[in-house]
């Protein structure tokens, strides 16, 4: 979980400069990135963590914060 979080933080830091992002900070509400960035985030998560973000997971709430993204990855990585 912590490794995943640091990978996500590293990816986000390429787009959000001069700001230390907290795990639970809402990156969209804070205005660091816009909703178009959400798709880049989805592709990053799929490629980096080898998971498939399905239709039902395409919800901004799953991508709002480092914690939310890490939870999604964990949920999708657990064998059904």
């Amino acid at each position, binding site marked *: 979980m912590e490794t995943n979080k640091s990978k996500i933080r590293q990816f986000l830091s390429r787009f959000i400069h001069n700001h230390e992002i907290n795990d639970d900070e809402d990156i969209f509400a804070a205005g660091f990135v816009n*909703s*178009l960035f*959400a*798709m880049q985030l*989805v592709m990053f998560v799929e490629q980096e963590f080898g998971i498939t973000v399905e*239709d039902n997971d*395409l*919800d*901004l*709430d799953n*991508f709002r914060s480092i914690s939310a993204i890490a939870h999604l990855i964990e949920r999708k990585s657990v064998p059904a």
Partner: protein
Amino acid sequence: MQVGVIGAGVMGTGVAQNLVQTNHEVILIDTTTAILDQARSTIRQALRLQRMLEPKSDQPGIDDLLGRITFTTELAALSTVDFVIENAPEKWPIKEAIYREIDLICSAHCVFAANTSAISITRIASQTKRPAQVLGIHFMNPVPMKPVAEVIRGFHTSEETLGIAKKLLGAMGKEGIVVNDMPGFVSNRVLMLTINEAIYLVQDQVAPPEDIDKIFKSCFGHKMGPLETADLIGLDTILYSIDVLYESYNDSKYRPCPLLKKMVDAGLHGRKNGRGFYSYA
């Protein structure tokens, strides 16, 4: 209704996406499978983004929506469609060849809509034996987000054809505003002159781009200023459109601003390559 969409660039993919989201079957055509593969991926990403922004919508799954599109390089696939929306590049020789060919392929009742911002609908219709069934639809980008399209009545376009087009647009969630066929129609004739004159303001050092745009946004309530709009459309496209207006009317009021030509020559094409009146790096 089954709709044929010719051209899988920015406009064609937007039209195809809009159509499948409103329960239409689409045949999407372009010249190479590489372009079609790119189009499939573009449409998929656009559908996913929309899902992301409206997760509670009752739209079918993304794979189901994509499944409504047949991707092909063969114009012959249009033999069964009821309506064609053509989004080929704004170059006369390309359009001319397409209309001659689809006129032979498509069924007699099929309507042809040219998605163009510049080329004469009457001239396009003259390439076919069905000029009453040819009209223009000038969609705005991004197509699925824009509630209005300009509908162009060519010299021979029938009321019935306009009715069919307005009904299709209605089903796509859009209103069609019917205008007559003159170069630039309504939107581009005014917009291109406005942008061109705004570029003269920069050239003549009346005000910097930020201030010009700010005046339009804060004084007239425009969402974007003319120079931001130019960067979004692409300065090369702007120059091309103004050149077409100049050629069409032979009126010096459509002469392109020298600064615009210089910027295009210098490779400053706007947002798409990172620099125009603003920097997007």
